[in-house]
């Protein structure tokens, strides 16, 4: 779901460095924004596009790539749309984060960018088409659902990828209505392409590579409200070699306990979903040199496999520990990285992207 | 006196502005020999001295210093030879005003590249010998004429030259001081077996020499020679 980064924009007081206070992104939205409601109805491809009547929305792509020599890479490409309001003024902002992981060179680079809605950043209504500076995500004309993704990190790396859905859109939560804590308005619409066959080019350090692999894309349309008392969250998406997927998010309270709104959902080979209870146990930790944040590194996830009906345990291991996005406009650090997944016997059974927030300092996630 | 010639002039002639100053002059000074060169003003004494010292060049004739023909040498080579083989004493002392007594005497040794320790030893010995060691840090301006000339004598001898050229060394001194400088010159040249060519007007000065050569109108006046053993 990956709303971590977007949420933080809402909470101006949580932001240490001053940009946000300058632009005054106070969450004092007047009552004329819509709030996600149960039993939604979606119309695709129009609902892949932007929903300006909701204050917060994002398209969040993560993926695993291999070049022709089978060298491994990871990438993250995220586009947010956020409405800020100050007095009588309302302004739409677009934030984007990009990250590229070069596993064999142990190199992780990232960049963030924040723009006003306008000539350099926008998201279209009625179709998926968003851009921020030189980065863009666009879905081809219907009936094709193929997505063109262009991104990169400064002049260090760039990629142009075609993302081809191998399964229909998954509607997480209750038919796409996903609770984000207590309170009637703490919710979002959560739409996901859980398996995107990916191919294209990746240029890194002046070297052009043909790459292929698998991506995951979340699209959430949010009220931008969260439950009270939360200090952060952990999120993970797993793509198993057997063609199934798993998505889990865990909203953390100050005492370390999980909020009841936390959730784990399996996606089977056909795209059908099934929720299961779960347990999350960090096996080791990693401390960031640049921020001092102490993150879980390898994590053990215990749940029930709906296919076999038996209990299963996976370990989720980062491909590189240093996958922290430490700086950027807004200034809240988080960890978002590519991982490999092993079963209890140590056999590699899939790939994952994991997001860890609130480990540098507690996020004050108190909505107004 | 077993006599190898230190300096030898053969038939020197020199003219300034068409005016002959030296005419066919031949002269030889042997090792350890003191020769006085006398003659009236304008007779060519200083010109002869300059030609012998390599400061001036004769129009005709040859000069040999320790067997080397000076005529063939470049200006720098002459300077080199002058620096190492000749000591010079002037009528007006010509000590360098900004150098102390010690430094003045030391200078010729520096020029020929003697090491600092040896320089110090030799200068000290010599200054003691001329009786001025106690004043070695004084500047020339603080000393009497006689003292200055004794320093000049020390300077002329310090680098063990083969030949000393002295131009009226007592001309600017009173009798007592003149006598003491002459005495010093005689003793020191005897001790070091150094040849001396002394240009002078004074009979007292000539008296310390082994022989006297007279110059008149640019020629050697053989008639006035006081010694039968003139080598020409």
């Amino acid at each position, binding site marked *: 779901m990956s709303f971590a980064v977007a949420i933080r924009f809402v909470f101006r007081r949580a932001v240490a*460095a*001053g*940009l946000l*206070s*300058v*632009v*005054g992104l106070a969450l004092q939205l007047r009552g004329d924004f819509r709030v996600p409601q149960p039993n939604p109805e979606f119309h695709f491809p129009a609902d892949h596009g932007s929903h300006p009547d909701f204050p917060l929305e994002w398209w969040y792509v993560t993926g695993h790539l291999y070049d022709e020599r089978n060298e491994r890479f990871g990438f993250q490409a995220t586009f947010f749309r956020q409405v800020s309001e*100050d007095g009588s003024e309302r302004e739409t*902002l677009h934030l984007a984060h990009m990250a590229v992981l070069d596993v064999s060179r142990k*190199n992780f*680079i990232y*960049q*963030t*960018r*924040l*723009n006003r809605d306008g*000539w*350099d950043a926008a998201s279209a209504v009625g179709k998926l088409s968003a851009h921020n*500076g*030189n*980065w*863009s995500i666009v879905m081809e004309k219907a009936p094709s659902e193929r997505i063109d993704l*262009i991104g*990169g990190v*400064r*002049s*260090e790396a760039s990629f*142009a990828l075609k993302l081809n859905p191998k399964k229909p859109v998954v509607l997480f939560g209750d038919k796409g209505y996903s609770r984000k804590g207590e309170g009637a308005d703490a919710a979002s619409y959560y739409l996901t392409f859980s398996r995107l066959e990916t191919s294209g080019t990746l*240029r*890194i*350090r002046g070297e052009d590579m043909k790459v292929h692999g698998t991506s995951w894309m979340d699209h959430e349309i949010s009220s931008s409200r969260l439950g009270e008392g939360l200090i952060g969250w952990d999120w993970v998406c797993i793509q198993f070699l057997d063609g199934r997927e798993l998505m889990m998010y865990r909203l953390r309270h100050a005492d370390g306990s999980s909020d009841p709104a936390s959730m784990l959902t399996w996606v089977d080979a056909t795209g059908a979903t099934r929720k299961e209870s779960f347990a999350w146990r960090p096996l080791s930790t990693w401390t960031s040199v*640049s921020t001092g944040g102490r993150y879980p590194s390898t994590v053990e996830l215990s749940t029930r496999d709906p296919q076999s009906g038996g209990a299963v345990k996976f370990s989720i291991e980062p491909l590189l520990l240093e996958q922290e996005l430490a*700086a*950027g*406009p807004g200034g809240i650090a988080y960890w978002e990285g590519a991982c490999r997944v092993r079963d209890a016997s140590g056999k590699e059974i899939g790939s994952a992207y994991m997001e860890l927030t609130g480990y540098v300092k507690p996020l004050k996630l108190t909505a107004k | 006196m077993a006599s190898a010639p230190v300096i030898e002039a053969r038939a020197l002639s020199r003219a300034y502005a068409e005016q002959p100053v030296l005419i066919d002059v031949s002269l030889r000074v042997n090792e350890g020999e003191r020769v006085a060169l006398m003659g009236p003003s304008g007779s060519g004494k*200083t010109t002869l001295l*300059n030609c012998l*010292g390599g*400061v*001036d060049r004769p129009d005709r004739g040859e000069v040999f210093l320790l067997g080397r023909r000076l005529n063939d040498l470049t*200006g*720098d080579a002459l*300077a080199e*030879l002058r*620096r*190492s083989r000749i000591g*010079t004493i*002037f009528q007006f002392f*010509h000590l*360098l*005003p*900004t*150098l102390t007594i010690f*430094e003045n005497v030391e*200078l*010729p040794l520096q*020029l020929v*590249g003697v090491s600092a320790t040896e320089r110090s030893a030799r200068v000290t010995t010599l200054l003691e010998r001329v009786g001025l060691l106690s004043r070695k840090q004084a500047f020339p*301006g603080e000393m009497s004429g006689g003292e200055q000339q004794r320093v000049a004598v020390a300077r002329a001898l310090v680098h063990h030259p083969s030949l000393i050229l002295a*131009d009226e060394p007592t001309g600017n001194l009173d009798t007592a001081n003149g006598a003491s400088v002459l005495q010093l010159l005689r003793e020191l040249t005897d001790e070091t077996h150094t040849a001396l060519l002394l240009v002078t007007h004074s009979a007292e000065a000539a008296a310390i020499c082994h022989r006297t050569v007279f110059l008149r109108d640019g020629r050697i006046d053989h008639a006035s020679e006081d010694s039968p053993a003139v080598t020409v």
Partner: protein
Amino acid sequence: MSGHAALKASLFWRTTIRHWRTGIGQFLLMLGLLSLGVGVFVSVRLANRAALASFSNFADTLTGQSDWILQPLAGTLPASALGELRAALGSRPADLVGVVETSAPLNNSKEQNLHLLGVDLFVVTNLAEARRKPGAQDQRSFESDTADFAHDQIWVSPLSRFAKGQAVSASIGDRTETLRVAGFIPTLPGQTPAPANLAVMDLMDVQRLSGKSGQLDRIEIVIEGGHDEDAVRREVNEIATRLGAGRWTVEAPAHGRESANTMTAAFRLNLTVLSLIALLVGLYLIFQTLDGAVVRRRTEIAILRALGVPAGWIQQLWLAEAAVLGLLAGIIGAGLGWIGAQGSVQFIGRSINTLYFETSARSATLDFREAVIAIGLGVASSLFAGWYPARIAAKTPPAQSLARHAWSGSRQHLRNAIIGAALIGLGVVASWIPPYRPVGGVRFPLGGYAAAFLWIFGVGVVTATALPLWAWLVRGLGGRSVPGRVASSYLRFPTTRHRFSVAALVCAIGMAAGMAILIASFEGSIRGWIQQSLQSDLYLTSKATTTAHFSPIDRSTVDRIAADPAVASIATRVYQTIVIDGLSTTLGGLELKNPTVQASFRWLEKPRKALDSYDAATSAFVSESFSDRFRKYRGDEVSVPTPSGLKRVTIGGVYSDYASERGTIAIDEATVQTWFKRDSVTHIATILKPGADATAVRLRWAEAFPGLIVYENASLRGQILEVFRQTFSLTYALEVIGVVVAISSLAITLASVLMERRDQLTTLRALGFSRRELALSACGEGVAIAGCAVVGGLLLSLALGWLLIHVINKQSFGWTLGFELPAAPLVGLAVSTVFVSAIVSYAVGRWGAGLRADREE
């Protein structure tokens, strides 16, 4: 040869240095004068650089570094150009920063205008991230303590005197706005803080306040860092250039600095050249001093030679003496220069502000490079001046033949006169050389400067040769008196140092008087021009208008002024910066059919028919600077870039204009308004009804229109002349220093000559000369030298004045000036030089008369 080196060092220490110690007074005086020469040069150089540096930082402060800057050829760029660029650049990692600038004079303050820079604050914050090195944490952005974002917030320089939260009242356009200080402009690591007068505001707010909604003054492009940076930079340049054809230019920021450089090159060059007067005179001084020392120490040199020191060593010792002197002077001069620069930077900054663009230089810094330049200059000039004396020293024969040959350093007068005449002749040839045009519309009068230097040296040599003639004059004037006779006897056989004293004074007087002639001619021409071009009663401009930036006045304001009961008629002008052939120049929209406007032109190339009969849309009249800079003359076509495309106009005439060296091209006002789709103006001139009180109207308007400056005719004239005088005020200081150094060198010369004549002085005293008579005799000598130099110097100044006016100024600024001789200042300079020289020489003479004879030397 290490033994030799040690020996040379020992000799240097035991002779040269000990001589300095003995004559410490004279040594310090000379060192001081020489240091002053170097110091003046360094201070002007440092101040120049500081003034420019503050300009260059100005553009870079916010962006850290821009890779490309897109400047509109004319007017502004539409904000839509940003989207167009982004589309054309595709996925290339480049950040596009739209910029709007405006000048906002502070109300109730005498301080500089606030320079308001409008940029999208989001975009600027992205830049830190875009240029961040992988792994680096540093990130800065605009911080604010205020709780809410508001549209009156500005961020100011940490160097400014504003406090957070302070309300600032400023004029923008012709309105007054209250701005609130939200915080400070962050200083990027390794960068200097933003200039004190810079304020940053969100782009849209500046666009709104300055009436430039939807418009940009320029676009800066920042290429994001990384492996492919260089390739991206090249591609972006190509794309932006292709896309901008006919609309904008694409320049590297270095080019912006370059144009600031070239814009002020002539101004700064003049200062630099003037600052060399003192150094040049210092050169003479070194020569004289060393030459005198060679003469005084020739016995010592002769003894050294007699002891067998080679001639080459002697030369090296003397060159070393010159070099050490230069080294010391360079070091002290660098320090003096740094001190001087602190004062002159303010001055130069002010002049550049008035004349060219806004800079906020407050202090100059001396870095290693400048210090090396100063020391290098000191050493090089000392070696140059010391070379000849060193050669003379090396030629000194050994002591044995010194007395015999009555050696002296006398030089041949006739040969010197011929050399002098040849230098003057070469100078005439050099003055014909056309200006050197490197790049960027700069015209550098290389030949003119060469001619100046040749004439300075040539006239100096010739005048010095004529010194013996003054012996007759002195005899004539004070001939019967004994001191006069003595003085004239010395002048009949002057030493080299006498002659060099003359040459040094000729140089100083010639340059000072030459500049005086230039300034007088300039002022005369400007007065005439003002007389003709300022015919109206009251003039109005926006307070934000400077010579580089024209701030608009709304049409509604124009209408209100026109409707004022006191006004008989008004004429408006609209000025606009445009770029032709890559060079910034001014497009003026004038009411060319208005008889008052027509009467204000002073024609250099007169239109061939009445102005009324020219076609408004295709005719232009250009200023002399424009004509000269672009080499366009009457009848030539010029393509004027406008938002409506290139417009071809034909030049109908060339007029004289001293307002700007960028040049102006004047076109019918209505035509310009149509081309630029605007109806605002930049200047209003009004003629009042008979009987109206101009001062009363001015005061009334000043109240009614707080954003405008209202000038009365007389005060505007005064203002222009004030700017003019300010520009030249440093010049006077430089000239005075030059003359002071020259007179001091005369004193040193006389002192050294008297030292050499100690024997003769003793003799004269023995003959019954009183101390006063000896002093008078020296005074006579000094006056003769000064008089001789004044005559030569004034002749030189006529030649230099002509050269400055018709060659150097004309070539570098393109301004024709009428020659005017400022009789009073020149006479004053001449008389005061002779008078001061007389006093100084008398004093030196009295000192010399007390010298003890040193018969031992």
